[in-house]
C-alpha cells in the first residue's frame, strides 16, 4: 500500500480565516446528561483553522458524545457549539456545510461501490451529479483507489475504508474536519498513513482538524491538545504547555498525572 497522496482540493477562493477572530470550532460551556448520568460537564475549548487539535481521553470520557453534539445528532442541552461562528443550533445548515466528519463506527454502505458511496454523500450536500462524479473521481485518484471505484466497499481493507471515509468527508470541501478515533482497528502501517494524510490536510489546505483519540503516540509536539476525562476538560493548549503545566516530560505522564489513570504499555490510555 503506497502512502496516500494528500487530497489537495481546488477550493474556490475560500477566504483565509484569521485564527485570532473566528475559530474553526468553538465549544462554550457545553454540558450533556443521559438521564441522571452526566456525560459532559461544562466543556469549553476551541479549534483554530489550519490546526491539528487532539482530543485525548479514555473510552467513556465523553468524546463521542461531544461529536454527536457538534454534528447536531443530539440536541444541545446547555452551552453553545459554533463552527466558524455559525451556531449549530441557530443555523445548523451553515455550520454543517463547513464540517466534514469521520465517525468511529464505519458508516459506509458495504454493498455499494466506492463511487456510489461518494455520490450519495454528495447528494446529501446538494452537489449536482455531474460535479459529484468529477469530485469523486478526483478524490479516489488522490487516495490511490481510482482503480477500485466500481468495486463494492466490502472488498476494501480497513485502512482503505478509512481513507475512503476521509475522502467522503472532504467531498463537500469543508474547512473543519472531525475524526473520532479513526485509527481504531487498523494495523501500524495503515495508521501511520491515515495520520500523515490528515496532517497534510492541515498544512497544505488549512483545514482545522479535531482528532479524538486515546493513543498518545498519535500526538506530536506541535499539536494542540485537549484532555477530556469523565466529561470534564482537565487541560487544554499547545502540547508543550500542557506537559509543562502538568510537571511532566511527555504526554504519557502528563495524562497520568492529570487523570490519575493507569497507563497501558504500548502508548494507549
Amino acid at each position, binding site marked *: 500500500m503506497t502512502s496516500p497522496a494528500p487530497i489537495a482540493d481546488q477550493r474556490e477562493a475560500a*477566504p483565509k480565516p484569521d485564527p485570532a477572530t473566528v475559530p474553526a470550532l468553538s465549544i462554550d460551556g457545553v454540558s450533556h446528561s443521559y438521564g441522571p448520568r452526566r456525560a459532559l460537564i461544562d466543556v469549553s475549548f476551541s479549534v483554530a483553522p489550519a490546526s491539528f487539535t487532539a482530543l485525548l481521553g479514555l*473510552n467513556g470520557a465523553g468524546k463521542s458524545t461531544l*461529536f454527536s453534539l457538534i454534528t*447536531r445528532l443530539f440536541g444541545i442541552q446547555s452551552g453553545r457549539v459554533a463552527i466558524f*461562528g455559525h451556531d449549530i443550533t441557530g443555523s445548523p445548515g451553515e455550520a454543517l456545510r463547513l464540517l466534514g466528519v469521520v465517525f468511529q463506527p464505519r458508516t459506509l454502505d458495504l454493498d*455499494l461501490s466506492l463511487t456510489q458511496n461518494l455520490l450519495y454523500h454528495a447528494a446529501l450536500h446538494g452537489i449536482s451529479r455531474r460535479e459529484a462524479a468529477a469530485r469523486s473521481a478526483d478524490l479516489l485518484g488522490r487516495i490511490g483507489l481510482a482503480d477500485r471505484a466500481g468495486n463494492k466497499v466490502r472488498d476494501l481493507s480497513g485502512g482503505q475504508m478509512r481513507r475512503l471515509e476521509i475522502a467522503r468527508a472532504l467531498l463537500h470541501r469543508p474547512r473543519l474536519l472531525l475524526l473520532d478515533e479513526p485509527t481504531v482497528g487498523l494495523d501500524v502501517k495503515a495508521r501511520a498513513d491515515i495520520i500523515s494524510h490528515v496532517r497534510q490536510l492541515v498544512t497544505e489546505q488549512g483545514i482545522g482538524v479535531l482528532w479524538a483519540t486515546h493513543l498518545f503516540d498519535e500526538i506530536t509536539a506541535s499539536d494542540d491538545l485537549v484532555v477530556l476525562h469523565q466529561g470534564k476538560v482537565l487541560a487544554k493548549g499547545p502540547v508543550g504547555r500542557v506537559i509543562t503545566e502538568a510537571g511532566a516530560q511527555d504526554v504519557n505522564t502528563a495524562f497520568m498525572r492529570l487523570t490519575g489513570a493507569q497507563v497501558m504499555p504500548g502508548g494507549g490510555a
Partner: protein
Amino acid sequence: MSSITTRDAPRGFSASEYMTCLTGIVWREGLRFLHQRERFISALVRPLVWLFIFAAGFRQVLGISIIPPYETYILYEVYIAPGLIAMIQLFNGMQSSLSMVYDREMGNMRTLLVSPLPRWFLLFCKLLAGTAVSLLQVYAFLLIAWFWDITPPPSGYLTVLPALILSGLMLGSLGMLISSGIKQLENFAGVMNFVIFPMFFASSALYPLWRVQEGSPYLYYVCEANPFTHAVELIRFALYGQINWISLAVVATCTIVFMIGAIYAYDPSRGLARRGPAGGEG
C-alpha cells in the same frame, strides 16, 4: 481581518439542492434494496401465503356480495388483494422506520443527519424513499397476483400509484411516530403484536365492513376509525380507477398529522443513549 470576511454569509439552499438530495436518498435506498434479496423475498412471501393459502381456504366460507368498486361478484382472492398490498406497505413502513430510530441503521442515519439540509426535509426524503421501496414490492406482488387471476383493469395499475404513495407515506410516518414515542416497542415482535396485527385484522383488509357490522357493531366502529381501513379502501378503489373520497381525506389527514408528529418526535439520541453514549464509546 474582521469576522465578516471569515464568516460565510448564510446563503440557504436552492430548490435544485433540495431536489439533488431527495433523488440521492431515494436512489441509495433503491440500490440497497436491490442488494437485500432476502428482504425482498420475505416481503413477497408474506402476502403470497395469505393469497395462495388463506384466501383459497376461505373462498368457500365467505361469500362476497357486489360492493363498490366491484361491478360483479368477485372471488375472495380478488377482495383481499388490496388489503394484502396495504399489508406489504404496513410491514415495510414499520420495518424501515424502526431501523431509523433504533441502532440498526444508526451509521447510515449519522451520515444522513450531518447533511446541512434541514432535518425535517431529510426525514421526509427518508420516508419517501421507504415508500418507493414498498412500491417495488407492491408491483412485484401485483405481477404475481395477475397470474392468480387478480386482474384489475390495466389502467388500474397506474391509477393506484398515487394512492400507494400516500398510503406508504402514512404508514411509514406512523411507524416512525410509534418507534419514537413508545419505549417498549424496540423490537419488531412488539410492533407486530401491538400495531401490525390489530391494525390489519381490525380493518377491511380481510372482510368487508358490512360483514363486520353484522357480527359486532362495536368492532365495526373500531374498523371505521382505523386509518389502515382507509388505506386499504383508497387502494381498492384506485385499483379500479375510482376515488373513495372519505378514505382519501382520512389518509391524507393522517399522513400530515403522523408525519409532523414523527418529525417532531424524532430523537436520534434515544437509540444511542440506551446502549450508552454513541455506540458505547465515550
